[in-house]
């Protein structure tokens, strides 16, 4: 029991950060599952984070209300971004979203009235791990429901082939726009979660680091199922801590090597519904052949 407490004292914060990163990964997954590679989650997270921090710090709102406002703020930001970006082709979209991340930081630096500028903002309240866990569970439930809904089916169709999807009466633009709204709301929640976890945010909090963490988490965990990003975020957040315990001297190098190895050997991610499906199909085929051989004999 004592050992368990020690473990929790050492790695409890890692779990909290993993949960915050899971929001970002889910937000990235939301758009990626409709075939859009976008780093704009960082922008939505910045909107949500600063909005929540200001709501609590300036207006003394309750944390839950701040989360709600952060989600709505992220969603509104996403609506603006989506209406501008969805006209671009996929490669340009990726570049544009990366540019937006750079602009987000510069904007945050130069609007000290809203974001505290270079000095950042101190967030006076925090949330418990349990509250964060409940919020993540609810968000995950939404993704689970979406995955099995018409929207989930339509988004998979758009991802596989947008042209084919549109011949079947699915509007890729509307699906991708919806995806952006979901991504914005979840990204805003994640931004607020990070703000309440760190209790200090600055323009550098929401920058390239998060962009690459979330995209790596999503792809590592698997971008074809809602469970993938959560697993990915957990692994990607725990990896540095684990590497520090095993090989402290070359911690960063080991992290990079693990990332490359997973990608090279499991390019579709850890959670891959197709691989499971293929395995089942192969087994069924073997069984049928087996049966056939028996009847021939």
């Amino acid at each position: 029991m004592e050992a368990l407490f020690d473990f929790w004292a050492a790695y409890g914060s890692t779990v909290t950060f993993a949960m915050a990163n899971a929001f970002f990964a889910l937000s990235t997954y939301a758009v990626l599952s409709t075939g859009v590679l976008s780093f704009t989650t960082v922008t939505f997270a910045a909107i949500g984070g600063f909005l929540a921090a200001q709501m609590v710090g300036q207006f003394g709102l309750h944390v839950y209300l701040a989360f709600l406002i952060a989600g709505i703020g992220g969603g509104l930001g996403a609506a603006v971004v989506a209406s501008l970006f969805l006209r671009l082709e996929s490669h340009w979209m990726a570049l544009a979203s990366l540019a937006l991340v750079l602009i987000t930081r510069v904007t945050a630096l130069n609007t000290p009235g809203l974001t505290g500028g270079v000095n950042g903002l101190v967030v006076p309240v925090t949330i418990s791990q349990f509250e964060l866990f409940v919020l993540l569970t609810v968000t995950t439930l939404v993704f689970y429901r979406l995955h099995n809904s018409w929207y989930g089916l339509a988004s998979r169709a758009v991802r596989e082939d947008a042209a084919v999807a549109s011949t079947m009466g699915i509007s890729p633009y509307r699906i991708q726009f919806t995806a952006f709204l979901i991504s914005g709301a979840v990204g805003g929640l994640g931004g607020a979660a990070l703000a309440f976890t760190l209790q200090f945010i600055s323009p550098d909090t929401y920058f390239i680091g998060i962009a690459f963490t979330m995209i790596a988490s999503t792809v590592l965990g698997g971008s074809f199922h809602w469970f993938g990003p959560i697993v990915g975020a957990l692994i990607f957040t725990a990896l540095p801590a684990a590497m520090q315990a095993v090989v402290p001297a070359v911690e960063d190098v080991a992290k990079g090597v693990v990332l490359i190895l997973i990608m090279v050997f499991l390019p579709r991610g850890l959670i891959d519904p197709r691989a499971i499906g293929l395995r089942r199909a192969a087994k069924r085929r073997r069984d049928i052949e087996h049966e056939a051989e028996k009847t021939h004999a």
Partner: protein
Amino acid sequence: MQLFVEQLINGWALGSLYALFGIGFGLVFSTLGILNAAHGAYASWAAIVGYYVFQWYGVPFPVAVLCGVFGGGILAILVDQIGFQPLRSRRMGMLGALITSIGFWIILDSLAGSATGHQSLAFPASSYPNAMVQIGPLRVPQMQIIIILSLIICTIAIHLLIQRARIGAAMRAVGWNDVAAAISGVNSRVIILLTAFMAGATSGLAGVLGGIATSNVSYTLGEGLMLKGFAAVVVGGFNDVRGTAVAGIMLGIIEVFVAQYISTAFRDGVTYTLLLAFLIIRPRGLFGSANFSRA
């Protein structure tokens, strides 16, 4: 007036570095379809190689630069063959390569930090031409002239190579559709290696020259070049090196002028706003062709 012209040349030299780096980044993006997060590390490592070659062997300036450039190219080939080649055969598209490039970015930056002892090194003043050149009333550092000329030479050479030479046609073919290129007899493996080397070498040149000119040899060198080089590529249109060159110079001049005449706080803001404006209004960039598409 003299200040204006001097700042113009400063900006031009700074922008030339961005453009040189951007040409390499753009080559990989347009030919190999990879958004390479590790590209900045090539520039850092080229500068580090150049620095240590000079420190250990005391070679003359051109040899140190050449070693750095060659080092950048070799590093690019290594990263490509270890990180990107296994994904190519599985048709993973841009996403897989992006993740492995993030992995390499982490590794190479961390190693670069160890190689420079986690500080910023500077080339000793005796290692490069550091005199001033008198042009009329102006005094221009020799390094700035070297940087400006390097960009002009590289842009013309690479543009001619891509647009006129057979090997350039093969590169464009692989960029457009590598399967179709292979069917018509292009050895895409060779083209990939060549493109990776050229991209690493060009960005490496930007790294070495930038490391000398700004007295900063560390992993931050590549990161700085990466952000601005990326902007130059997008504004210029990434399938045309001329566009990257012009856009890079433009961004450098704007940056220096904004810092000089408006405020240093807006320096990056103006660059990135311009970047976003271009992406939304004219996504194919200054010189980019209209029919760019990649399945």
